[in-house]
């Protein structure tokens, strides 16, 4: 995905068509079509087991669909496209190394010289506000610190798109705020944000557009204000009202 063409391109940032995935008898993703544009923050909502995590994994090429296509800036997922995508998982996967080494590891494919790499690592430490813990083993960090580190590690690869799967689940309010601040700053730098959450407050604070998924299908794609004031389906209003949706 060449970065130059991203501004004001006629081609949408992401175009998904006819996406389906089944495992055994179960259809996990059922004929999803959607178009996502650059510049707005998209939240993927839906009840537990709706297929949000799988959808995100499909989007960044961690899983292969059975049918359908995913085009980033008009291109199918290849290694150049992958380099522009960064994914943060709900449970951060941290290497058995120091905080700084975890950041450095993500730059393995960035083709940077030693000086530039050190600079990016410092940038990551600053972003995660973990300068004081740079040489600590990453896996000894608290949950919130680990998530900040994972986020910073994703961002120092300078992605065009940041995908986040419940990045603040099980974090305390201060950590949530810290993580949201990092996401916000990424957005203000022009990085496309696509995230999953179950926190309606976070949807208000962080998102512009909602993709609602139910049973592997996108049932609506609207603005946050529209979705929260008048959700387009019974499932969506049940979901928002906290009624169990199956």
């Amino acid at each position, binding site marked *: 995905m060449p970065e130059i063409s991203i501004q004001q391109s006629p081609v949408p940032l992401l175009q998904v068509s006819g996406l389906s995935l089944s495992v055994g008898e179960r259809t996990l993703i059922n004929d999803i079509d959607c178009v996502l544009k650059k510049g707005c923050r998209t939240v993927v909502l839906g009840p537990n087991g709706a297929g949000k995590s799988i959808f995100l994994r499909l989007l960044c090429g961690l899983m292969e669909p059975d049918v359908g296509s995913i085009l980033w800036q008009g291109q199918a997922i290849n290694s150049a496209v992958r380099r522009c995508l960064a*994914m943060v*998982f709900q449970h951060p*996967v941290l*290497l*058995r190394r120091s905080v700084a080494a975890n950041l450095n*590891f993500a730059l*393995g494919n960035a083709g940077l010289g030693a000086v530039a790499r050190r600079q990016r690592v410092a940038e990551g430490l600053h972003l995660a506000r973990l300068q004081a813990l740079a040489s600590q*083993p990453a*896996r000894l960090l608290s949950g919130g610190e680990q998530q900040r580190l994972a986020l910073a590690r994703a961002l120092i*690869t300078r992605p065009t798109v940041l995908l986040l799967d419940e990045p603040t689940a099980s974090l305390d309010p201060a950590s949530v705020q810290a993580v949201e601040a990092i996401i916000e700053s990424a957005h203000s730098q022009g990085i496309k944000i696509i995230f999953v959450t179950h926190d309606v407050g976070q949807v208000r604070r962080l998102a512009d557009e909602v993709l609602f998924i139910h049973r592997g299908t996108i049932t609506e794609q609207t603005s946050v204000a529209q979705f929260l004031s008048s959700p387009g389906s019974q499932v969506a209003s049940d979901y928002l009202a906290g009624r169990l949706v199956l």
Partner: protein
Amino acid sequence: MPGFTETFGLALQLIFSGSRDLVEIVMLSLQVSISAVLLGCLVGLPLGAWLVVGKFPGRTLLQVLINAFMGLPPVVIGLVVYLALSHSGPFGVLDLLYSATAMVIAQMLLVTPLVAALARQHLDDLYLEYRNLFASLNLSSWQIARALLWDARYSLLTVSLAGFGRAIAEVGAVMIVGGNINHLTRVMTTTIALETSKGDLGLALALGIILISLSVTVNAAVMGLRSSARRLAYA
């Protein structure tokens, strides 16, 4: 035949007087087994990583073979190396039979499958944990293998010590390819076997005590290493 107390006294005396023969035997044992383990790790660790990361035809077959070789009795390995190195064998011209080098080769062949198989298990578990991250960073198999080997470093150290345990404790292979020649290829285990059969139990027991202490020390080192690695969350 002397009593146990007498033998034990003699053994301790041999150990603490630093008998030259004894020191020579212990040093050769360590030299041979440490070299064999280093070489075995040099081959076995990358092989283990390749089994985890690599996608090639015959991977399962190779895995089965390695697992089978892991349990092979040392005498069989000794026999194979003997045949290869004997004058009529394919490597006969190298004239290595009955040398320390031959013993290193035999023990290396003994240790490599063990190291590879154990390493594969550890690396497999780690890969399961890391694969999402690796995939999202778009790493090559080569980068993944290197990262796995580094991140499993503490477990792999214990793997190599398990290899050392197998090497230093075996008799069959070194006996066949080394020939147990005095001052040349005599190691702890072969000496114990020989001296016991001759009735010279003092030297045999002295070496036995040293082997046991060595084993205890190595295991204590492993435990210490593990717990410090765990404290750092590096294990």
